[in-house]
């Protein structure tokens, strides 16, 4: 067994920043990651970090843009925290040596991004995430923070009180990928989940293969609500063959979208008469697909993104990485021809419900970054807001977990008395039921004998449960390979829970997800080896994807309105009267319930009034 004050699961931007935050607050902190930190998916982020740094801009404008961008589904305390903390946290990165792009006077450059009323996206070429990831890792090395790399976290060690709000997280169970050893990691002060997004639930995604929603699924099964999972961002400019991201920076710098007829359709077909290509991502994604669906797409599949007119010098200065991506992955020279692009799954705006300090309803369990939903992005995330989210809330989660007082959180967490619960929705399946043996809270059953939890016992039982599960998977000689289930799940989600959605399709997806659960009962690990068994690891990940995909589809089914990234064929209007609320899905021991929590539109000094969102 390993023991530390704070255990951070995942070592991308949020995890690294959380570890540094906890270390700064005096904790003995360790990171457990299935990759090595520099392999994390934050490295693929391109665009930049929004922060109000300049005269003429201020945090209130940033907060306002973010609230509008969220289609009034963000929580004001979270959004205001983001906008207020982002400037200092961004400059901290500069102080740590981050190679931001520079102005003539040596200050950091900022550029325009979709949905922003001020050019406040701070960037380092078109490879901001790469530099952010490496700078944060450098600081972790500098501080001598312990990193357990290539350790796959399989489950949380959480007590089993009936009400999740009474439970405590005491650590995690992880598996050393290189040796196959399953071991417990005890956290004396807290566990921080920073496991990134679940993009692999879809088959055309900008996300890395490692983005399998592990943290989401583990927290969900331990009893933490999943919030607003139906809000999946589809990025309008991904390469058609691979899903590789072409940064919004291209449009920020003046890149133009054309359909097959050479029409600048964002204007000519009236999708966004003011902002054009720089309308927010949901608007541009729908516009592109509408062009394709109406027969104006190139090869009936994509549209063109043209940056040639920007000139080689500017492209090489600010978007060089884009040239390499277009050439390596699509065989297109962006200096002489337009690039093919289409929408692809990009970002999960929902996630593990947390407050502004990163804490969940389970004592000692935190989440930050894309896996979390403190609710800054609401129904649609603005480009350039993911990186400030992970530094701001990563730092806060780390500090709070280490015991620093950050003040009382305004956002409530956990299932509460008197909340509105969904009872009459016609679900095609019983969610969560069948197919997968119970783990998590059930497996770590404390004896229920009283208030004082047997910490070592909770952890020991969790470890034992995972060792048994590995044994069962490895013992099985034949069955369904995880790759088959994963492919089926990804296809169903892309077919029916994509940019355009309707009730029939979502129900079809839910039925397929159910089939995947049934088939998963018969999943087996073909590789007999304990050494670097990726077959075993991917079998675990596939199970997590099933759980996460189900919450996405369930959220999409019940939210019968059109808001932000969530478009519903049956209902083409935003319905503020009924739907200014978050969709919450609680598993709690395999019995999922769907309930709602009102959006907090009241900020510190002002209240955000929902307005029609036009660009």
């Amino acid at each position, binding site marked *: 067994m390993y023991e530390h004050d704070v255990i951070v699961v995942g070592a991308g931007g949020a995890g690294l920043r959380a570890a540094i935050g906890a270390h700064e607050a005096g904790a003995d902190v360790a990171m457990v990651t299935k990759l090595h930190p520099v392999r994390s998916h934050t490295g693929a982020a391109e665009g930049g970090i929004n922060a109000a740094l300049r005269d003429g801009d201020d945090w209130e404008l940033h907060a306002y843009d973010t609230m509008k961008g969220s289609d009034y589904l963000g929580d004001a305390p979270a959004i205001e925290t983001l906008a207020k903390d982002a400037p200092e946290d961004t400059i901290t990165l500069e102080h740590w040596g981050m190679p931001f792009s520079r102005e003539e006077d040596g200050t950091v450059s900022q550029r325009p991004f979709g949905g922003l009323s001020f050019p406040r996206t701070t960037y380092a070429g078109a490879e901001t995430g790469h530099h952010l990831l490496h700078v944060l890792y450098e600081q972790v090395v500098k501080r001598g923070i312990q990193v357990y790399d290539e350790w796959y976290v399989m489950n949380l060690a959480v007590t089993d009180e009936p009400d999740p709000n009474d439970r405590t997280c005491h650590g995690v169970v992880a598996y050393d990928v290189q040796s196959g050893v399953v071991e417990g990691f005890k956290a004396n002060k807290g566990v921080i989940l920073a496991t990134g997004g679940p993009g692999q639930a879809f088959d055309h995604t900008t996300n890395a293969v490692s983005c399998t929603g592990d943290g989401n699924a583990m927290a969900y099964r331990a009893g933490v609500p999943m919030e607003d999972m139906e809000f999946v961002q589809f990025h309008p400019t991904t390469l058609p063959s*691979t899903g590789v991201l072409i940064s919004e920076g291209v449009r920020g710098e003046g890149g133009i979208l054309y359909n097959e007829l050479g029409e600048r359709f964002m204007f000519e077909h009236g999708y966004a008469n003011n902002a054009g290509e720089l309308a927010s991502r949901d608007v541009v994604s729908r516009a592109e697909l509408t062009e394709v669906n109406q027969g104006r797409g190139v090869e009936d599949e994509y549209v063109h993104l043209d940056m040639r007119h920007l000139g080689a010098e500017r492209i090489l200065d600010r978007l060089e990485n884009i040239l390499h991506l277009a050439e390596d992955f699509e065989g297109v020279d962006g200096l002489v021809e337009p690039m093919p692009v289409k929408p692809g799954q990009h970002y999960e705006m929902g996630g593990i419900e947390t407050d502004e300090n990163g804490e969940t309803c389970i004592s000692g369990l935190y989440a930050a970054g894309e896996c979390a939903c403190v609710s800054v992005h609401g129904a649609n995330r603005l480009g350039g807001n993911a990186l400030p989210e992970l530094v701001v809330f990563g730092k806060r989660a780390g500090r709070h977990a280490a015991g620093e007082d950050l003040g009382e959180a305004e956002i409530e967490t956990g299932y509460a008395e008197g909340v509105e619960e969904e009872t009459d929705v016609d679900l095609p399946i019983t969610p969560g039921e069948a197919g997968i043996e119970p783990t998590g809270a059930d497996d770590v059953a404390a004896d229920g004998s009283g208030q004082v939890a047997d910490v070592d016992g909770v952890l020991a039982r969790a470890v034992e449960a995972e060792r048994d599960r590995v044994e069962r998977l490895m013992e099985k000689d034949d069955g369904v390979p995880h790759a088959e289930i994963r492919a089926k799940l990804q296809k169903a989600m892309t077919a029916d829970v994509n940019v355009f959605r309707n009730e029939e399709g979502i129900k079809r997806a839910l039925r397929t997800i159910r089939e995947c659960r049934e088939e998963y009962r018969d999943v087996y690990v073909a590789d007999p080896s304990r*050494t670097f068994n990726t077959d075993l690891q991917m079998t675990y990940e596939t199970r997590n994807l099933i759980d996460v995909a189900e919450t996405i589809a369930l959220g999409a089914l019940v939210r019968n309105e059109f808001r932000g990234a969530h478009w519903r064929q049956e209902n083409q209007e935003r319905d503020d009267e009924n739907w200014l609320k978050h969709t919450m899905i609680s598993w709690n021991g395999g019995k999922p319930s769907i309930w709602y929590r009102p959006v907090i539109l009241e900020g510190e000094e002002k209240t955000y009034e929902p307005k029609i969102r036009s660009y």
Partner: protein
Amino acid sequence: MSTQQQEQPEEPESQEAPTEQEMSGLSSPQQTRLQRKQEGLAQREQAARDAEPEEETAHLKVFRYDPEVEGKQEPRFDDFHVPLERGMTVLDALIYARDEFDPSLTFRHSCRQAICGSDAFFVNGSQRLGCKTQLSELDQPIRVEPLPHQEVVKDLVVDMEHFYDQMHSVEPYFQEEDLPAGDLEEQRQTRENREKVKMSTRCIWCAACMSSCNIAAGDNEYLGPAAINKAYRFAMDDREGEDIKEHRLRILEQEHGVWRCQTQFSCTEVCPKDIPLTEHIQELKREAVKKNLKFW
């Protein structure tokens, strides 16, 4: 099709697992499991080999080794015939082979867009990122092997510990001298200086350069091109100041530092991010001479 690879899995069923496995603490049910699984694997692999190559396929010869699995303890190459699609990369082909033919085929990969640095392999005799290498530009059969000069953990996975140790040995973090007083005040850096360090900051730690370097192969203590480039990234960054630059040069001019480089350019040749590694090393040698430091 090699005969050698077909023989090994066909050992008699009753044969006990070798004693080496007892050292790894495997109990006898595990040995039985291992054996059953190996038989299943052998059958699937055979089926994959027997499958008639379709018209448009890529023929891959992939290095296989697993210290724990009997049939793979002796390194071998397996043949995979993967249906060829336009734009397909070496990584795509490996994923296809794993997901469709043999779930035990093991390699690191994640972002599949040349930024995570985890899928550097030795492809047709050269260090390359699997995700960035189109099958169409390679002669068939395509040989895919683990990075040379690194210990093989299993199949295409190599032990990266030594590489990481070298990276960490150059104090790979910014060491500022005078930060601006305000929390909201950034340091100033000229565009020229950012341009100067730009290429060096692009390193993705894939270890292709280290694996291609003859000197690193013969001298385990040599810092190697990646670590020296990491040091360059800081030493040339004006924000750090002269004192720390001198400290960095002292690390670099040690016995196993920059002077070991024999300018063979193999690192520069294989770098998937086009970092002029050899040039950076030479520049640091010049800096060290300018600072009048002793050299070996």
